[in-house]
């Protein structure tokens, strides 16, 4: 009999621990009745109670969601049209266009943040939630474009000609044939954009004015003020929401798969 190696088992458990132990500790600490989190001070819900009583956190969350929704919506519209244009028309100007869209994906965020800040200052635009939205659109747009573009590359353009041939004008061709077929790309790009927007710290940090604090920025200031237990509670809530969202998505997906087969 071949002796089983222990290496794969150890590696698997090591990797899992490496990834999930910090998160587990964070969840545990959110119920820890000790301010520093150095030792176990007993079970408590007090951090959650405090969390829901802190108005700044709710304000920051509200800002984050507004920014995420508006910038996702805007980048879906702009990004999809950009992708269609990039796919349909070729030329030197389009190469430039592609380069422009691609740049935000590779430029360091901090550069993007600084340049946007300089730009707003030069134009004497007052920093606020508007500038955050504009800044988020600039990078979300690139992700949507890339997602839609990859979908378009698998798309048989003859289908559009078929629609024209059967009597569709540009409008009906776009809405009844093109959009339904690239919808998975649009949705994927939109989800990516939404996540990135909610998550973004660096760029928001530069362009957010007073009163436009987003959640990541607020969390950062909370760390500086030393309210660790509150952050733990907040993170646990975020984790639970994310987990729930994935669960719902999985259930819907499984139902769909069951319906077609």
């Amino acid at each position: 009999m071949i002796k089983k190696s222990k290496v794969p088992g150890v590696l698997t458990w090591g990797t899992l621990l490496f990834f999930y132990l910090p998160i587990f500790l964070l969840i545990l600490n959110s119920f820890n009745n000790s301010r520093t989190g150095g030792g176990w001070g007993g079970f408590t819900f007090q951090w959650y109670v405090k969390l829901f009583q802190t108005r700044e956190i709710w304000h920051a969350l509200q800002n984050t969601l507004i920014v995420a929704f508006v910038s996702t919506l805007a980048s879906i519209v702009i990004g999809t049209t950009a992708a269609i244009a990039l796919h349909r028309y070729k030329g030197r100007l389009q190469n430039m266009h592609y380069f422009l869209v691609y740049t935000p994906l590779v430029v360091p965020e901090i550069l993007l943040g600084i340049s946007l800040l300089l730009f707003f200052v030069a134009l004497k635009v007052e920093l606020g939630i508007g500038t955050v939205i504009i800044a988020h659109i600039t990078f979300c747009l690139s992700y949507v474009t890339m997602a839609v573009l990859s979908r378009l590359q698998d798309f048989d353009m003859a289908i559009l000609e078929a629609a024209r041939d059967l009597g569709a004008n540009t409008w009906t061709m776009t809405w009844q044939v093109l959009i339904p077929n690239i919808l998975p790309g649009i949705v994927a790009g939109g989800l990516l954009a939404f996540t990135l927007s909610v998550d973004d710290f660096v760029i928001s940090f530069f362009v957010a004015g007073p009163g436009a604090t987003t959640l990541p920025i607020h969390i950062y200031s909370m760390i500086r003020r030393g309210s660790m237990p509150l952050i733990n509670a907040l993170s646990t809530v975020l984790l639970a929401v994310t987990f729930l969202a994935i669960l719902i998505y999985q259930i819907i997906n499984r139902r769909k798969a069951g319906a077609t087969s």
Partner: protein
Amino acid sequence: MEEFLWFKDITKQFGSTKAVDNVSLSIRKGEIFSLLGPSGCGKTTLLRMLAGFESPDKGKIILDGQDITDLAPNKRRVNTVFQNYALFPHMTVWENIAFGLKLLKRPKDEIKREVDRMLNMIQMQDHAYKKPSQISGGQKQRTAIARALILKPSVLLLDEPLAALDLKLRQRMLLELSLIHDEVGVTFIYVTHDQGEAMSISDRIAVMNNGRIEQIGTPAEVYEAPKSSFVAAFIGDTNFFDGKISEVLDDEYCRITVPDLPPMLCFNDKKLAKGELVHLSIRPEKFQISLDEPKLGPKYNVLPGVVEDVVYQGDHTRFWVEVGDDWRISISRQHTRFVLDEKPIQWKDKVYVSWFADDGFMLERYREEDEDLLQTPPQTVGEVEEAQDRDSSTQDLAVNETGD
């Protein structure tokens, strides 16, 4: 005769290549007309101009008395069956077929009646609610045809409709297409690079090469009486001889001297004079081959030769026979009798090749490169693959040209 569909002096250029070069063409109502040629010959471009996806640089397209040259594709009473069907992947078969009528905002019960009628015609009632990804190639094909025909077009365009199907299915679909044509009576324009398909389905064929029309005629006309070396070599197989008229006989025949060969008797339908150059095309099946010298009438030519290659193919055998110093003749012999009872003709046998003088056909135009289209046995190992490589690379080029 009333002109139904008329291409008038059409020219279309892509970059520096002329995809269609001053083509004029008239198509009759109700016929199946094929545009036949190798990839890149301009047949698809011509079709796309008729559908409205390209506009000609020069010339006019007139359909039923109306100039449709600059009409948008959705305004033309012309519908297309695309090469890869181009069915809408997010719609069911039913929705695909109903698409055109829905756009016309026809009443619901009329749409249902028409779609059901179409489904019935293509025998797809059981698959109406499947998506295109769930049906076979032949079914996709039939759906695409129904989707185009439901709008009752004046002309149905078929762009290599069978190219994506396997051989058996292709032959079946070809017969089905003829049935559908008989039922609806719409004019079909059929684009293909497959001469077999074009021959079996068409009323008339236009053979195209390099953006020009080489010949228009019934399948029998283009096969039996090719005007150019391209048509002769592209449709079926043939043998070319080039020589000079050495003697014009008074009974509409002439003698032709071909270097290294004895003078040949040939029917002089082109009324050529003594001394003129002539190119002959003789189809492989027009030759007889025998081991003994045949006793034939005065209107026959007989040449002695040596068998160079024999390929048995069941219903016929292909021989390559060397005659004279450097001539190789391709001969196809139909097996109308039980072959095993005969004394076989084998490699290196001395044979006699004969043909009737009327079966040599004089070509109007001859280009040497068309000889590459002829079937020849390989002389060295690897030659065939090289030829294939060449073929596929030219095909790739052609695809790039026709694509937009």
